């Protein structure tokens, strides 16, 4: 599904990713762990095409298509979703209008008719339940005045609406209390199918307890330095990252 080969990327002229290789197959959940500044968020931003980042070399194929040549919105239409670490507030734009624009843009891309208002609202109602978001949400502006937990739940709600095939969760667990984390993680699990995959960026084991990754990668200084099974995450939780550093030195 996702094939990253020798990916180099930089921001403001500073090289952050220094040769990433990563393959994600349908149905798999990959966890990406690493310390601050290792390049985790850079990788997620590069994948979704954030213009602040520049890809200097390498390829990324997504379902056989060259991802790096696509605009950010086309990447979204192709099924790529990023749950932002810091979702931006868009004052005055209601969630309903926002989501309808997103859904219909996707449908247009796939040459489908726009969704009727009734169907759309029904869909909103159903998907809301996934993350226990209250009904007032529809009238609120995108992320405006949302608490930290609400913002993250809102991200998962949008994921439910847009039904991506590959979701990237960028530190979706940071700043969440135990209950909020459970809601977000269980919401995410409800949305899983054998075809959908995820790349989960996190510092903590807690989220991974819920999501049960198939593969765990450790990112250090812009490269994946170690790959293993779920036990690797446990080991990092217990011992930190230093032992890996020593290993590669």
């Amino acid at each position, binding site marked *: 599904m996702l094939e990253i080969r020798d990916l180099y990327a930089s921001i403001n002229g500073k090289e952050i990713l220094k040769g990433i290789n990563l393959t994600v197959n349908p149905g798999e959940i990959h966890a990406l762990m690493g310390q601050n500044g290792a390049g985790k968020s850079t990788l997620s931003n590069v994948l979704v095409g954030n213009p602040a980042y520049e890809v200097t070399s390498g390829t990324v194929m997504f379902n056989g298509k060259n991802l790096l040549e696509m605009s950010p919105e086309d990447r979204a239409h192709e099924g790529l979703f990023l749950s932002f670490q810091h979702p*931006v507030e868009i004052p005055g734009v209601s969630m309903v209008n926002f989501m309808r624009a997103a859904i219909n843009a996707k449908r247009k891309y796939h040459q489908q008719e726009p969704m009727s208002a009734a169907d759309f609202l029904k869909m909103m109602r159903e998907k809301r339940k996934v993350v226990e978001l209250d009904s007032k949400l529809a009238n609120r502006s995108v992320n405006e005045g949302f608490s930290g937990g609400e913002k993250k739940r809102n991200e998962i709600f949008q994921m439910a609406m847009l039904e991506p095939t590959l979701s990237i969760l960028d530190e979706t667990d940071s700043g969440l209390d135990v209950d909020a984390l459970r809601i977000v993680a269980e919401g995410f699990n409800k949305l899983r199918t054998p075809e959908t995959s995820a790349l989960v960026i996190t510092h903590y084991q807690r989220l991974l307890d819920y999501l049960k990754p198939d593969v765990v990668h450790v990112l250090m200084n812009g490269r994946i330095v170690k790959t293993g099974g779920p036990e690797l995450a446990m080991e990092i939780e217990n011992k930190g990252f230093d032992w890996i550093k020593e290993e590669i030195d």
Partner: protein
Amino acid sequence: MLHSSLWIYKNRMNNREERQNNTNGKKPNSDKKNKFVREVAEKKYEYGFTTDVQTEIIDKGLNEEVVRLISAKKEEPEWMLEFRLKAFRYWLTQEQPDWAHLKMPEIDYQAISYYADPTKGMKKDGPKSLDEIDPELMKTFDKLGIPLEERLALSGTAVDAVMDSVSVKTTFKEKLSERGIIFCSISEAVREYPDLVRRYLGSVVPYRDNYFAALNSAVFSDGSFVYIPKGVRCPMELSTYFRINARNTGQFERTLIVCDDGGYVSYLEGCTAPMRDENQLHAAIVEIVVNENAEVKYSTVQNWYPGDAEGKGGVLNLVTKRGHLRGANSKLSWTQVETGSAITWKYPSCVLSGDNSQAEFYSVAVTNNYQQADTGTKMIHLGRNTKSTIISKGISAGKSQNSYRGLVRVAPNADGARNYSSCDSLLLGSECGAHTFPYMDVHNDTAIVEHEATTSKISEEQLFYCNQRGIPTEEAVGLIVNGYAKEVINKLPMEFAVEAQKLLSVSLEGTVG
């Protein structure tokens, strides 16, 4: 080929690099920097067609004879002619004001025709039935979405349709008159209800008020007259639709609304003009009298032709609008969505004389390409416990200049006056300007007057968030702009609100910045 929005991003990235270089002491390359703004597409003006209809146009030029001729054509009584002549003589002594933040093209007042009548082919007193209206005219208003056949009308809206200098047709007149409501063209009112008109015309905006008010008072052609009797709530929205068609003519509309004690009316105004290379002059006056316990809502969606992408042509919209809240507990609300005109010079104002009176001004002004707007309001607090609210949202794009100018004055006796003003500007592109000039004059210690203003742009983070959800940049801008203007749009009646939203998006097409 890269997707167009990607191309835009690329340029943004260049910007970022430049900023970086810049801190290293290099000078920014402004040319490169603004490259993406050059993408600005010519905005589409849907209403730019002309109507081929037999129109009587008087010779160009302005002198006392012309004023007399207009009055004669309208078969006005002597007092009306006197009013016009006094205004004209005063106008001659005045100079065009230049205090606004506008680069005004020179107006040759002698190169304009002051009267154009597209109903020439019809009967003198106006058409008695639809059959008498030139089918071309009917078609024009249909095309503009203003059906003159009552059965086709928007539910619950009565329309006065004015083309050039003459009212073509007023709908639902009979139905309204059952409740004592008068809704007709001002020309008709001068003939039919001289006492009412004489009593109120010029009482809110005297002809000496300003240069353009004097001009309008001398040569005003048509417009609407509304009278709401005591205790009557007008059962439908009243609206006037203004259309400039003829070439080299000015439109000088005059609207007078009187809402008597305890009455209520919601009034809408819309306007369009054909695309012409030369500037067209539109100098209007709207006067509103609000008596005790009465309430008037006045909404405008102004979409005069703004000129082309190079700034050629377009309507010069120089308008004096004022309401006098004469009675206690009276209410007046101005809502305007200004997207058209090459130049807008307009300050719908309120004089709050009645105790406990309340006034509002809600405005969205969009400028694109070479448009210039200097608009705002005046709130003059005279009575006790008066309250006013000003919400202004300016959106500038292209090479346009957009200014808010407003005055809040609290007189010494206006105890307990309260004003809140909020003026926000949104800039799309680095070649436009957004300006705020509020004036506050408080002469009373019990007053509370607050003003705040912010300037912002659409952030790259917001656009990218939308992109990541699959919404293309162009559409994202439309969404965000409409969200920004929502507070004002929500004040409009439903049909107008939808129209206004569309207009906002169309006006800003291609201005991603």
